[in-house]
């Protein structure tokens, strides 16, 4: 029965002509009488994450900018490797086959480290390729250094002048006047192939502003200096860092840390600042900077006194016997006596002690200790920069962190932490030259016999002191004026042609340092160069191939080129070809013995090509690759060009517990006291040339190759003097630091006792990175700068209140040698008494058209007196017209503040690491202060350098054998043994 309203309305509708309602036409004949249910629609195609590999050569996608029209574009997908940090994540370049333009970069699913995923920096490679401000041609300075006048020159002119100069220096025995200073190395092992061929000790690096501390701490345990944590399989992950790993191996490790966490691992983070990672941790500890060691030792003490450490592992692998013999000769040499001593040694490191030092509650430290005690041998740890790079004695943070791995037996096992060399593969290069016979004291001074990597931060001061001069100085993807502390001291020496004769800047972009160069030579970014990469990203081992994507695309399209400049934009080159060509021109007739390194292994006497270089390495020195390639009918080089990566091995594979083979034992002898196994057989050349410590063969016994353990097994052991994990470092003892021979607590230079908060003193923590930026070379990535372009000073609410500051107010941060003015960000995410400011920002330029306009502020730089420098921002970042319409849409103005300029050098006397933390004094900015103001006194900077130099124990005073440095200890670009001796000292065994 219908209602009256409805009836009335229906009646009205019936009497009127209605607009037509279309009947339905069902897509299938569903209106049959059958009562069978409708068939379930079948998916036409499963969803995929990536284009299938078999279609990479020819892939079609619709152009999204043409929507709603469907316009197909054809691409060839070329694998390469990102160049925007050390992770070496895989990328796929989408190259339009008609225009030969790169449309985008996505991940390479075949890359075992990154597995198809990238952080923001990877896809932003596109910005770097098409940056309208990038340098496309070789430039030579026309006026004075720093005047900003340039002329375009040919590559031939540049190569001839540089090669001629280097040749002259070599012939005149001035090998130490050639320095190659690298920021981001491209190709593992490449410069180890080039520089020894020249016979020079020229390598200089950024490591002492990066990881010298962590390396030293780890190497003093096991000889090897880098960790390789297996986060994905860990039960406990312990990070002393920010942003997962301070931006290091960010993406690959981030993935595995998340996997580990999702599988139930506990994540513990020690970071003074509330970072993104700390916010996701199960336990976040915010210690006073420099007190991390106290916490670690308290945890170690807990494991020791409660007996919750892996006794079997410690007994088997730690050099406890050496410790007892040396320090307690009155005691029987038994493990039980060692255990008693261990308890005594660490009894003072109670939770309460650690709480007092760090400001973290004793309850939380105890809670964390109990979590670690339950790790069941699956403790994955990592510290790279952060506390190890920030504090006096920071290397001891790494040593004490590794102590926990030792105590829990979490070394070289699934879910634990391995050494990098077990997960890294650098193929042997052809025609490798012997070690050079020179030692460069400008980079390896006598005062730092145990430093890890070069003392590059001290170069300006050494030059000012007249310790030497530099004839030819390469800065390669490196910007020391900006990235290093004490940048004004760098500026002073770079402008002094009597100290640096020729400055060659190899870079894809403009930079503050490049402005003071004589030549700027444009080198390709990640999509424009050849490199071979291998990094310890997880439990496994892989290599990846970085290649110029347009060059490879042209080859696939039947238009091969012989030189990467013919494929790259402008005349942008790549370094492999550049160094080969430069080396050839240094020694064109081969009489210097340099040229032969660069001769083709396939065409005797001819210059090697990039295809031959990589082809030879892949064919001869990458296990499994030739076989995998042959299965597909490819050469190994073709395989790598097609897939971009090759997995050598899955899973952990430590070497220390590997039994020596019968062949190795054939001529071996065993020292009855130490158990060390020696052989006189010469070492076979290794296909993997990842650096290892080196032990000079004993004239009577030969070289050490292993160790006989308590249970009689004869295994490889660790590459240390004892062949064991060195709880007791005879190296530290013998080279002037006996008080640090065992893991212990060192007061940081910013220990609370040194900070008077009543005088508004604080600790400036500058060691945190932004994972979206990568120092200088992200400066032309518009997408990245749109995300991150300011670096305010983090300040706790209580400190801000005391100073009368609110978010956005200006603060003057006064350091030992100057000050900077920045805005504050008031937050609860930083400890009271500590301020923080990211070091990734504050780029500047001196001329309006000086390049890098989307990331740099235009500044005025004045020298007001001798050594007194003042910088003021004229204006920030502004939109501008260019070939890229996006540059007119720039909406951000802030370029950040360059705090590093106001930091004096703080080289740790043991590791050489620049200790980044600064003791500062805070003041509200005055009426004449402006945002971005900087003042520096380089005379004072030199005084501070002398203060820190006075802390050292030079080899000339402490060397036990007349050498500059322990010969066995890792040292990049190791010279020949004869160069190790101090001047006036003879050769000793």
């Amino acid at each position, binding site marked *: *029965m219908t*209602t009256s309203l*409805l009836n009335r309305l229906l009646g009205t*509708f019936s009497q009127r002509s209605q607009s037509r309602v279309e*009947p*339905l036409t069902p897509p299938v004949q569903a*209106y049959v009488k059958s009562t069978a249910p*409708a068939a379930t*629609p079948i998916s036409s195609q499963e969803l995929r994450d990536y284009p299938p590999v078999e279609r990479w050569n020819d892939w079609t996608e619709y152009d999204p900018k043409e929507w709603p029209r469907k316009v197909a574009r054809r691409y060839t997908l070329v694998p390469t490797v990102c160049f925007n940090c050390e992770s070496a994540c895989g990328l796929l370049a989408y190259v339009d086959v008609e225009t030969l333009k790169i449309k985008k970069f996505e991940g390479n699913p075949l890359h075992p480290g990154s597995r198809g995923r990238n952080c923001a920096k990877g896809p932003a490679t596109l910005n770097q390729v098409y940056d309208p401000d990038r340098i496309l041609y070789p430039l030579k300075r026309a006026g004075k250094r720093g005047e900003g006048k340039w002329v375009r020159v040919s590559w031939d002119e540049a190569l001839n002048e540089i090669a001629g100069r280097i040749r002259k220096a070599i012939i005149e025995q001035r090998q130490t006047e050639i320095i190659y200073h690298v920021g981001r190395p491209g190709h593992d092992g490449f410069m180890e192939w080039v520089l020894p061929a020249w016979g020079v000790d020229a390598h200089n690096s950024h490591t002492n502003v990066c990881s010298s501390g962590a390396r030293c701490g780890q190497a003093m345990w096991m000889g090897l200096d880098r960790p390789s944590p297996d986060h994905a399989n860990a039960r406990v992950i312990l990070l002393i860092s920010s942003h997962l790993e301070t931006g290091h191996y960010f993406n690959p490790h981030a993935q595995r840390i998340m996997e580990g966490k999702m599988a139930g691992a506990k994540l513990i983070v020690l970071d003074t600042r509330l970072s993104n990672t700390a916010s996701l941790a199960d336990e976040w500890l915010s210690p006073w900077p420099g007190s991390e060691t106290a916490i670690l030792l308290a945890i170690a003490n807990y494991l020791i006194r409660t007996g919750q450490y892996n006794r079997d592992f410690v007994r088997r692998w730690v050099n406890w016997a050496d410790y007892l013999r040396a320090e307690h000769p009155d005691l029987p040499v038994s493990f039980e006596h060692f255990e008693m001593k261990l308890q005594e040694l660490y009894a003072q490191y109670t939770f309460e002690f650690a709480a007092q030092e760090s400001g973290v509650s004793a309850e939380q430290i105890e809670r964390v200790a109990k979590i670690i005690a339950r790790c069941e041998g699956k403790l994955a740890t990592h510290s790279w920069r952060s506390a190890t790079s920030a504090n006096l004695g920071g290397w001891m943070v790494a040593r004490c962190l590794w102590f926990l791995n030792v105590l829990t037996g979490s070394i070289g096992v699934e879910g634990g932490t391995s050494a990098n060399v077990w997960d890294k593969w650098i193929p042997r290069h052809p025609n490798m030259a012997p070690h050079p016979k020179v030692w460069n004291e400008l980079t390896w001074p006598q005062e730092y016999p145990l430093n890890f990597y070069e003392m590059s931060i001290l170069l300006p001061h050494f030059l000012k002191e007249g310790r030497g001069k530099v004839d030819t100085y390469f800065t390669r993807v490196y910007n020391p004026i900006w990235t290093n502390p004490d940048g004004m001291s760098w500026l002073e020496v770079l402008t002094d042609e009597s100290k640096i004769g020729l400055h060659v800047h190899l870079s894809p972009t403009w930079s503050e340092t490049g402005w003071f160069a004589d030549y700027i030579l444009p080198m390709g970014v990640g999509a424009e160069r050849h490199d071979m990469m291998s990094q310890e990203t997880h439990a496994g081992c892989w290599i990846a191939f970085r290649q110029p994507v347009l060059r490879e695309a042209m080859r696939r399209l039947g238009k091969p080129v012989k030189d990467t400049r013919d494929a790259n934009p402008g005349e942008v080159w790549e370094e492999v070809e550049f160094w080969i060509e430069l080396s050839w021109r240094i020694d064109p007739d081969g009489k210097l013995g340099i040229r032969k390194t660069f001769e083709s292994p396939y065409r005797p006497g001819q210059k090697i090509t990039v295809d031959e270089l990589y082809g030879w390495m892949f064919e001869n020195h990458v296990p499994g690759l030739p076989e995998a390639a042959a299965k597909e009918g490819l050469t190994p080089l073709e395989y790598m060009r097609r897939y971009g990566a090759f997995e050598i091995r899955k899973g952990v594979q430590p070497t220390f517990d590997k039994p020596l083979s019968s062949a190795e034992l054939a001529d071996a002898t065993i020292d009855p006291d130490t158990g060390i196994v020696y052989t006189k057989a010469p070492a076979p050349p290794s296909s993997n040339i990842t650096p290892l410590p080196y032990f000079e063969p004993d004239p009577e016994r030969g070289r050490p190759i292993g160790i006989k353990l308590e249970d009689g097994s004869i295994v490889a052991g660790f590459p240390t003097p004892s062949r064991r994990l060195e709880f007791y470092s005879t190296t530290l003892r013998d080279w002037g630091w006996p008080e640090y021979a065992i893991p212990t607590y060192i007061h940081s230079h910013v220990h609370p006792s040194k900070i008077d908060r009543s005088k508004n003193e604080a600790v400036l923590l500058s060691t945190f990175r932004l994972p979206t930026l990568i120092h200088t070379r992200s400066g032309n990535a518009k997408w990245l700068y749109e995300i991150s372009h300011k670096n305010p000073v983090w300040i706790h609410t209580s400190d801000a209140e005391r100073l009368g500051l609110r978010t956005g107010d200006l603060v003057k941060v006064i350091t030992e040698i100057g000050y900077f003015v920045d805005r504050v960000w008031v937050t609860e995410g930083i400890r009271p008494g500590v301020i923080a400011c990211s070091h990734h920002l504050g780029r500047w330029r001196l001329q309006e058209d000086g390049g890098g306009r989307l990331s740099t502020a235009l500044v005025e730089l004045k020298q007001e007196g001798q050594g007194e420098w003042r910088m003021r921002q004229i204006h920030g970042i502004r939109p501008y017209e260019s070939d890229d319409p996006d540059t007119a849409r720039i909406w951000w103005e802030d370029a950040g503040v360059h705090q590093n300029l106001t930091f004096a050098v703080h080289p740790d006397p043991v590791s050489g690491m620049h200790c980044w933390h600064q003791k500062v004094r805070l003041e509200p900015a005055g009426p004449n202060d402006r945002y971005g103001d900087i003042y520096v006194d380089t005379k004072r900077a030199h005084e501070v350098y002398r203060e820190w130099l006075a802390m050292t124990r030079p080899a000339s005073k402490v060397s036990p054998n007349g050498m500059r440095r322990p010969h066995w200890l890792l040292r990049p670009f190791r010279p020949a043994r004869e160069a190790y001796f101090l001047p006036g000292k003879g050769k000793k065994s």
Partner: protein
Amino acid sequence: MNDHTTLVARQAMADMIGRLLLAPPSPALWEEAAILVDLAAVTDNRPEALAIAYEYVFGRNVYPYESLYCDEELMLNTATAEQVAATYNTCGFLPTQNVGAPDHLGLEFIFLARLIATEATALSAENLDRYYWARQQMAAFLADHLAVWVPIWARAVQRIPAHPFYQTLASLTVEFIGSELERLSPPMPVSPTYIPLQSATAPAEVDELGALVRHLITPVRAGIFLSRADCTMLARQLGFSVPIADRFTMVRTLFETAGHFEQVIDLVTTLENVMSNEIQELHRLIATQSVWQPLLQPWAQRLTQSIHIVRTGLG
């Protein structure tokens, strides 16, 4: 009821109802509706007032999406919306209007109109297979979807003293559906099953009051759609006001304020009255048309249970 002329009238009516529900009436639709005397009588000739009322009723108070009444997530495009979309797909219906989700009442009515048109066309062409197919689809759609929730939606609209036009439209919507149910006599589902598109992960409530509030604002549990206007009305009856916010916050504030002023018993009583009234309305509709009984009985039971929960939950 099933002759061609009547079917044409029905398809036109369903189509107009659908279009009136999808958006405030355009001038053309306004003219079309004004021809219908009974509708014209409640429009008072002011299209701006209708637009305001439309926004007030459907934009801020009684959202006309089936999934909000039949699923627990209180989100758009949950399981029910997927099922409706699948039905559209099976029948070859491609909505041209973008209203946020396929289960908007207006779209469902336009779909119904298209099915009636199919029935009518098939009847005049003597295409019996298509004729019976269309009727089968309509019957299923009414029994599984439209008739399940529209009465609850309509009651929520009728509780709002907004504009007589939309209250009349709500009544008309229910009457039309009832008429179609009688015409098509579909087999009724014994017990409608609810399969969530995702597990009903309503945020875990930290306390009992939160759990009670969550129950009351989830129609498929409470048996009623409590709109913001309902909350305002309840508060006004108790002599205070609650600020406009999301429904959860408003209902929670209602209880907390009542607790603050020791009026909890008054609130409970008022709520019970509202729910009891709704039960009576449902029974009245059932009494008018027996076809409603299996569809509305579950809602009446939910209301009864909600009354019990409110009483016992607050002691």
